[in-house]
C-alpha cells in the first residue's frame, strides 16, 4: 500500500481505485490519520470518521461491482456552511452551537450520490464573513504555508480557510467551498490550490446556510484544474428546491480539458492595475498573459470602467442581504438562546441572544445592512448599489459581446498575510482582499483561480480567469492551459 495516498488528487485517486491499486477504505483511513495529526492547522472542526468509513466501504463495493460514479470512494472535506444530516453544522458561529441539521444540502447530497466520502466539516469565517478565517467561533484556521525562514502563522484566507488549508496540507483530496465575494478564490490563491466559483445558479444553494442569496455560490477547492472539473460536475445540477437554480444540463467539464486554447481571446482589464500593486503580482499577471499568448490565445486590453465601484456596491448589497437572512437567528427555533434576567421579555431575548451568539464582524455587517435598508436610506444606499451592480454586469457583457472569451486578472492583491496582522486595520482594509474577486459575484459569472508562482518569501500567488456565464467548461480549459504553462508544483513543507 502506498504511504502517501492523501497526497493524491481526485483524478489520480479515481484512476488508482478503478485499477484496483488501492481501496477507498485505504484512502479514507490515510486521510483520517493525517487529519488527526494536523490539529495545529485547525482545519477540520467536526470529524465524521464513521460516516467516512461507511461510505468508503460502500464505495469499494460499487467499485468491485463495476458501478462507480464520478467521485466514487474519493475522500473530501465539507465546509461547515453546508448542512449535512445529523452532523453538527454551525457556519462557524456560536449562535448555531449544538445545531444538528435534519436534512442534507443538495450539493452534499449530489456529492454523496456521486460516491464521495465525507471526512468531516471544515473551519470557516463566521457565516462566511471574512477574508482570513479569523472570525470563526472555532478559532483561526492556519495556512500550511510559511514564509521562508519564519515560523509566523499565516492566514489560509477566508472565508473557506479550513477548506483551503485542508486541501493544501493533503488532509483530504478536495473540499467544498462557498464564494460570496471571493471566499473560494482568495483562500485557494493563498494556499497554492485551485478554486472554482461557478456561474450563479449552477450549484443549488439549498441547505447551505445563507449569507447573501444573490451572490452566494458553492464550488470545488482542489489540487488541480482537472480535479475542479470533476468535482464541479458532481456538485452542479438543477434543483427545484432552489428557485434560482438553473435548469440547464451539466456538461462533462473534464472532457472539455483539451489544453487547446488557440484562437481564444483573453482580455486584460486595465482597471485591475491598482495603485500600489506589488511588483511581484504585476509580473505574475504579465507572465500569465504571456503563457496564454504562447499557448495560442490572443491577448487584448479591455476596459471594465465600473470596477472601482464593485467593492462599495458589494458592501451595501451583501450586508443588506445578510441582515435579512440572519434575522432568523432569534433564539427560538435553533441554536443559542441567552439566559434571561427576571422581567426580560421577548425583545430582550432577541437582543441578548444575538449579542452573545454573533461575533463582532457579523454584528457589524448585520447592522450596516440594517442601516442601508432602513427608511430614508434605502434609495440612497441599497437601490443605488443595485443600479451600480447593473452597470458592473453591463461592463462584462460589453467585453464578451466584443469577442472576449475570458478575462485574466490577479487573484489577490498580496500573498497570505500573518494571522493577527490585520487586527488594528479598519474593516475597509480587510475588505480590499476581495478587490479582484468581488466583481465576479456581482455579475454572476464563473471564475477560477490557479496557482501560478511563488513570491520572494516562498508563498504561493494565484491568477484568476473570469468566464462567460454557463461557460465553465471553456473557462476551465483555459485555466488548464494556464496551469500546464505555469507548472506550479510547490507544496508547503510539513511542520504541523
Amino acid at each position, binding site marked *: 500500500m502506498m504511504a502517501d495516498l492523501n497526497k493524491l488528487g481526485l483524478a489520480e485517486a479515481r484512476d488508482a481505485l478503478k485499477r484496483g491499486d488501492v481501496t477507498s477504505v485505504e484512502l479514507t483511513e490515510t486521510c483520517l490519520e493525517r487529519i488527526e495529526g494536523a490539529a495545529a492547522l485547525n482545519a477540520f472542526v467536526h470529524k465524521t470518521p464513521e460516516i467516512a468509513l461507511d461510505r468508503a466501504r460502500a464505495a469499494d463495493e460499487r467499485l468491485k461491482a463495476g458501478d462507480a460514479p464520478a467521485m466514487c470512494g474519493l475522500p473530501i472535506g465539507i465546509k461547515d456552511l453546508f448542512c449535512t444530516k445529523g452532523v453538527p453544522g454551525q457556519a462557524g458561529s456560536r449562535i448555531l452551537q449544538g445545531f444538528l441539521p435534519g436534512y442534507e444540502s443538495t450539493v452534499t447530497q449530489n456529492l454523496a450520490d456521486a460516491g464521495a466520502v465525507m471526512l468531516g466539516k471544515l473551519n470557516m469565517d463566521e457565516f462566511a464573513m471574512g477574508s482570513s478565517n479569523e472570525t470563526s467561533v472555532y478559532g483561526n484556521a492556519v495556512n500550511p504555508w510559511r514564509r521562508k525562514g519564519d515560523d509566523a502563522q499565516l492566514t489560509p484566507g477566508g472565508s473557506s480557510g479550513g477548506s483551503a488549508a485542508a486541501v493544501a496540507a493533503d488532509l483530504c483530496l478536495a473540499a467544498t467551498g462557498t464564494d460570496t465575494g471571493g471566499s473560494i478564490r482568495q483562500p485557494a490563491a493563498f494556499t497554492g490550490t485551485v478554486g472554482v466559483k461557478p456561474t450563479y445558479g449552477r450549484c443549488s444553494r439549498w441547505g447551505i446556510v445563507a449569507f447573501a442569496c*444573490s451572490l452566494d455560490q458553492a464550488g470545488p477547492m482542489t489540487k488541480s484544474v482537472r480535479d475542479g472539473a470533476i468535482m464541479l460536475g458532481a456538485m452542479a445540477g438543477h434543483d427545484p428546491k432552489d428557485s434560482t437554480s438553473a435548469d440547464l444540463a451539466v456538461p462533462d467539464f473534464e472532457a472539455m480539458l483539451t489544453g487547446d486554447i488557440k484562437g481564444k481571446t483573453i482580455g486584460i482589464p486595465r482597471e485591475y492595475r491598482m495603485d500600489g500593486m506589488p511588483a511581484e503580482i504585476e509580473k505574475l499577471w504579465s507572465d500569465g498573459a504571456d503563457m496564454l499568448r504562447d499557448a495560442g490565445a490572443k491577448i487584448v486590453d479591455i476596459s471594465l470602467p465600473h470596477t472601482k465601484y464593485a467593492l*462599495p456596491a458589494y458592501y451595501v448589497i451583501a450586508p443588506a442581504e445578510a441582515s435579512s437572512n440572519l434575522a432568523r437567528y432569534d433564539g427560538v427555533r435553533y441554536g443559542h438562546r441567552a439566559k434571561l434576567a427576571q422581567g426580560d421579555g421577548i*425583545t430582550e431575548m432577541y437582543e441578548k441572544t444575538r449579542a452573545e451568539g454573533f461575533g463582532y464582524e457579523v454584528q457589524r455587517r448585520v447592522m450596516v445592512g440594517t442601516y442601508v435598508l432602513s427608511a430614508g436610506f434605502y434609495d440612497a444606499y441599497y437601490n443605488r448599489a*443595485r443600479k451600480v451592480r*447593473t452597470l458592473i454586469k453591463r461592463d462584462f457583457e460589453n467585453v464578451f459581446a466584443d469577442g472576449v472569451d475570458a478575462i485574466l486578472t490577479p487573484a489577490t492583491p498580496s500573498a497570505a498575510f500573518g494571522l493577527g496582522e490585520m487586527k488594528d486595520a479598519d474593516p475597509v482594509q480587510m475588505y480590499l482582499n476581495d478587490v479582484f474577486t468581488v466583481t465576479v459575484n456581482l455579475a454572476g459569472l464563473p471564475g477560477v483561480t490557479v496557482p501560478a508562482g511563488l513570491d520572494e518569501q516562498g508563498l504561493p500567488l494565484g491568477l484568476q480567469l473570469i468566464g462567460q456565464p454557463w461557460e465553465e467548461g471553456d473557462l476551465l480549459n483555459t485555466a488548464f492551459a494556464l496551469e500546464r504553462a505555469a507548472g506550479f508544483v510547490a507544496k508547503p513543507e510539513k511542520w504541523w
Partner: protein
Amino acid sequence: MSIDQSTAARVAKLARIKVEEDALPALADEFNTILGFIEQLNEVDVDGVEPMTSVTPQRLTRRADEVTDGNQQAAILANAPDAREGFFAVPKVVE
C-alpha cells in the same frame, strides 16, 4: 453623512442586537468608516439604470401549488432551545 451615537443605538435596536452604551462611540466610528467607503457610489451616474433584481436573465420558475412536505413536528422542534408540548416556547409576548 455622519452617524452619531444615537443613530448607532437606533440601528442596533432595529437589528435586535444589544450593544452596551460604552461600545457605541467605537461602533459609530466604524459605521462612518464603512459608509465613507460606500459614499463613492455617489460618483456614478445611475440615471435611467434599472436596479438589478436578478443576476441571471432567467425568470424564477413557478411550481404547482401542492403540498410536497409536512407532518414533521418533532424534526422541526428538535433543535429548539425551548420546546414544550409541541410548540416553540418564548417569554411572554402578550400581557
